[in-house]
């Protein structure tokens, strides 16, 4: 009995130490969150003209029509993945979807592309409900969209030129000269030297260059919508900056509507007109980057503190 008592008190002490440590951890997270938020606010303040432009874009967008709309979407495979997810992306907007790993961020892109069909709810693209389309009709809708995959997903049996020309050969009647002209134009847009890379195979390129070729392929057929799946993951800070600038350039110059799934809070704050935070299968927050940085929501604070 005596032994048990000692055990008990020992366990209590251990529990208390554990609680203390957690408390400390929480305090550190809060401090970190505070610092990060301060840094973000500072950066946003420095970027005032940028932010103004974005605000103007949002205002413009407010009047324009919805290009992408998810309407109370539910999806489950073996277990629920998305529950009651709704958001709207208007003409020229860049929506960034952030959230922990495995919360179904990439799934949202697949729903927009109609590679997946929701169990309940609707996905509407340019006013057309795409949930009920046949496979062939879905192929047609996808031609309006350009997708940049996480690993670029270039066809490794084809050269860079063939990769970018692929959507043009599949869907347009352009002749060879026009295709080459278009491929060069797109490569120049993503700051690659056409003469140097056109003949190369994807395996001969660096990760950043592959991503850029991926963007060039995605935009080859001049889509109205661009989708990016973690465009900056696995890249060094400099290349991350380049890719972020490219996404901004694409949005500004060609006024495409973009949805970006990302882990990279810094670049999200630079390019998003609106941010959607996904937590436990639901959208926990949907608003401007400024609103996100100013929010007192515990989850958002923790989430930013993690960075």
């Amino acid at each position, binding site marked *: 009995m005596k032994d048990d008592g000692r055990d008990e008190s020992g366990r209590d002490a251990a529990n208390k130490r554990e609680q203390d440590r957690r408390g400390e951890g929480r305090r550190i997270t809060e401090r970190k969150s505070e610092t990060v938020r301060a840094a973000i606010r500072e950066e946003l303040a420095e970027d005032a003209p940028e932010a103004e432009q974005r605000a103007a874009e949002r205002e413009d967008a407010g009047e324009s029509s919805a290009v992408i709309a998810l309407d109370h979407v539910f999806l489950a495979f073996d277990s629920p993945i998305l529950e009651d997810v709704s958001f709207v992306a208007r003409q020229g907007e860049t929506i960034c979807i952030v959230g922990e790993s495995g919360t179904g961020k990439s799934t949202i892109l*697949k729903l927009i*592309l109609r*590679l997946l069909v929701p169990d309940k709810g609707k996905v509407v693209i340019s006013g057309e409900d795409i949930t009920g389309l046949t*496979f062939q009709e879905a*192929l*047609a809708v*996808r*031609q309006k*969209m350009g*997708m940049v*995959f*996480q*690993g670029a*997903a*270039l*066809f*490794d049996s084809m050269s860079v030129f063939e990769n970018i020309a*692929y*959507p043009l050969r*599949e*869907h347009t009647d352009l002749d060879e000269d026009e295709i080459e002209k278009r491929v060069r134009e797109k490569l120049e847009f993503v700051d690659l030297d056409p003469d140097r890379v056109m003949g190369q195979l994807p395996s001969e390129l660096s990760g950043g260059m592959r991503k850029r070729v991926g963007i060039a*392929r995605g935009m080859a057929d001049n889509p109205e919508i661009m989708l990016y799946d973690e465009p900056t993951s696995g890249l060094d800070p400099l290349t991350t900056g380049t890719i972020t600038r490219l996404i901004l350039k694409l949005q500004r110059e060609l006024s495409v509507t973009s949805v970006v799934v990302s882990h990279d809070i810094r670049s999200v704050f630079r390019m998003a007109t609106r941010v959607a935070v996904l937590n436990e299968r639901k959208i926990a927050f949907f608003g401007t980057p400024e609103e996100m940085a100013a929010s007192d929501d515990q989850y958002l604070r923790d989430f930013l503190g993690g960075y």
Partner: protein
Amino acid sequence: MPPLTDRFAQSAKAKLRKVQDYFSLAGRAIGFIFARPFYTQDVIQQMDEIGVKSLGIVLLTGFFTGMVLALQSSVQLQAFGISALVGRLVAGSMIRELGPVLAGLMVAGRVGSGIAAQLGSMRVTEQIDALNTLGTDPIKKLVTPRVLAALIMLPILTIINDFVGIVGGNLIATVIIGIPTGQYWRTVWEQIVAGGFTLHYIPNDFIQGLVKPFVFGGIISISGCYFGLNTTGGTEGVGQATTRTVVLSSILILIVDYFLTQILLSIFAP
């Protein structure tokens, strides 16, 4: 914990769904052969990959199988004093059975695994999703050319396999058993004639020997594509896909061969 019967029913249902997926893939792949756009370039490339590049192993296996057939059968036939009929035995076995089955098994190992590995890597690196996104049906672009190429090339490989096997038998018959080449080929022809003719000119043995590789080509290519396209779990999954392809297509070839033989023998009963 659900009762045993429930779990059994569930796993049976899952298995059945896979069989259904397999046949639906086969159906769509074959249906697309006749639908625009035609990816002719891909078909030619796959014919090269599946057919021309398999020539080496088919030549080797055919030649040595023919030689060993002649060697073994000569011992058996000698016991009855009819070793002069080696040609008949070699030709009969090669054309009807060993040619198609061995070519099928070799191609299953070489090409089936290759198809599964390639499509599997494309799946795990999101290239299949990329095709879908760019508005191309991956079945039409990837599966149909492979199936079509295999359906065309397997019978051709089998003809080569048969011929080389009979030549290998010829070598052993002449050099070791001492049967003159002329007599050997005469007995080979006798064997082919004995099977009878369809429409006066087409030897029944040839029809039997070419229906099989046609079916085997379908089995190999569709198995490879099925496991490749359904790869999950990264590079490890690619390895599993290749193994499953070779195992399933080899087993199916042997099982289907038996039933095909029974059907064909009842049609072309001598």
